[in-house]
């Protein structure tokens, strides 16, 4: 149960560094803003919020955590134990996804009520958040500072925001099918309209495939750009 212990530690780490406190504040702010949105548009705005939020949480939290760990010089100690990189990455993705899903439920629940398809809604948030967590780990492995990370992350994330164009009625669906975020938006829209089986299978499949790709990319990036470089300067001097 090493990954379980790593997961429990990640949750404690996020709590101790005040991430949850900040996140509760953000959720309250969202709810306050939604209060002023006209009832007709509220459902669409909630879909947008619950779409963008897991991306933001996955991206910012994962990057922040890795940068904090880097700064505290903890990685070489962690990986001189039986903990495997895969377990480490999965624990990070799970801890952040669960936080995202909780926040999404609070926002959805307190604004427009319980989602029409609770399972699809939750799966959408979990898979989107874990995808962005892995993406963020790949990006942060390439960054040396928080500023560098913020700049670089925009470059990597921007293409995945393109399906929002379709959400606003721009372009044909086929153009966006390759993006995992199109799958996320589809599942979230189950709150607004019933989805066909074909749509559900497609959305889950594209999210799972992209999670796999992002996981492998994060693993390779972390291994090459963080683990292999530990103490490198000192050794190669």
């Amino acid at each position, binding site marked *: 149960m090493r990954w379980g212990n790593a997961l429990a530690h990640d949750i404690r780490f996020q709590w101790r560094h005040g991430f949850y406190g900040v996140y509760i504040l953000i959720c309250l702010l969202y709810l306050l803003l939604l209060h002023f949105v006209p009832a007709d548009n509220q459902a669409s705005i909630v879909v947008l919020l619950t779409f963008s939020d897991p991306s933001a949480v996955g991206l910012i939290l994962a990057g922040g955590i890795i940068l904090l760990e880097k700064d505290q010089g903890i990685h070489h100690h962690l990986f001189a134990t039986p903990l495997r990189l895969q377990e480490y990455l999965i624990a990070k993705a799970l801890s952040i996804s669960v936080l995202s899903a909780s926040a999404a439920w609070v926002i959805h629940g307190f604004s427009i009520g319980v989602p029409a398809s609770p399972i699809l809604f939750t799966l959408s948030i979990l898979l989107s958040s874990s995808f962005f967590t892995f993406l963020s780990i790949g990006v942060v492995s390439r960054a040396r500072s928080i500023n560098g990370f913020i700049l670089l992350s925009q470059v990597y994330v921007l293409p995945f925001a393109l399906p929002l164009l379709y959400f606003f009625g721009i372009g044909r669906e086929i153009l966006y099918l390759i993006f995992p975020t199109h799958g996320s938006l589809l599942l979230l829209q189950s709150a607004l309209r019933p989805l066909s089986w074909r749509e559900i299978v497609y959305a889950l499949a594209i999210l799972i495939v992209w999670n796999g790709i992002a996981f492998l990319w994060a693993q390779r990036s972390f291994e090459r750009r963080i683990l292999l470089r530990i103490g490198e300067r000192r*050794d190669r001097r």
Partner: protein
Amino acid sequence: MIDVEQLEYSYPGTSKKTLQGIDFSIARGEVFGFLGPSGAGKSTTQKILIGALRNYTGSVRIQGQEIRHLGSDYYERIGVAFEFPNFYSKFTALENLKLFQSLYRASKDDPMDLLGKVGLDQAAHMKVSQFSKGMKMRLNFCRSILHHPDILFLDEPTSGLDPLNAKIMKDLILEQKAAGTTVLITTHNMHAAEELCDRVAFIVDGQIPLIDSPRALKLHHGQQRVRLEYTSSEEKHIEEFPTHNLGNNERFLQLIRQHPIETLHSLEATLDQIFIDVTGRTLV
């Protein structure tokens, strides 16, 4: 326990070999020291031995098994204390130890007992960010032995410690040796190596020109003489004598009978001097 043959390693993107074909063997329960200046290849050797760098050539076997083929279970059998004692700074000493302990299958000891052993029981609930370097080094050592490893890797274990803390650390290492643990120490501190190691390897430019016990090195490379400092007519005098047949040396016997002796030392070489003589380099 550990057998290394013709080990070579180059970091990705560099043509220069950091390790250029080194050979050594370490027996079970031995305290073995790698001595060398910064950049000599000590830490690279250690990283290969702990399985962090696998793209080496040559052979590195632990109890007969090639290290690049060992899985994560290998880490159940080794303990590593890196030179820089880094921890989760917002967590207490006890929380840090509990986290690391939870990553091992074997570890069942109460971390409080370990903290008590290194004199940190009173600081168990302090955040590590409030610790001094000496306290962190002791906590670092605790972390490395949480799971009773068979092999312990210590990188500069006395670095930055005051004499009292350095003494505590040396005693802890000798305790591990007494318990049968194989200990590999990487250092450029000759005095620590002399006190702790059964054998030392000099490592320079990725090569090992010499491996022997500190005692044998000092005797072999030293002068077979003693130096006597004594006072006569309120003046200090120094004379040296060959150790051979010293008991029959009339001048020596006359001096120690007739004058107050201030100091009397055999002139074996220091490890620092031997290192310079053998490698032509200093340990800085």
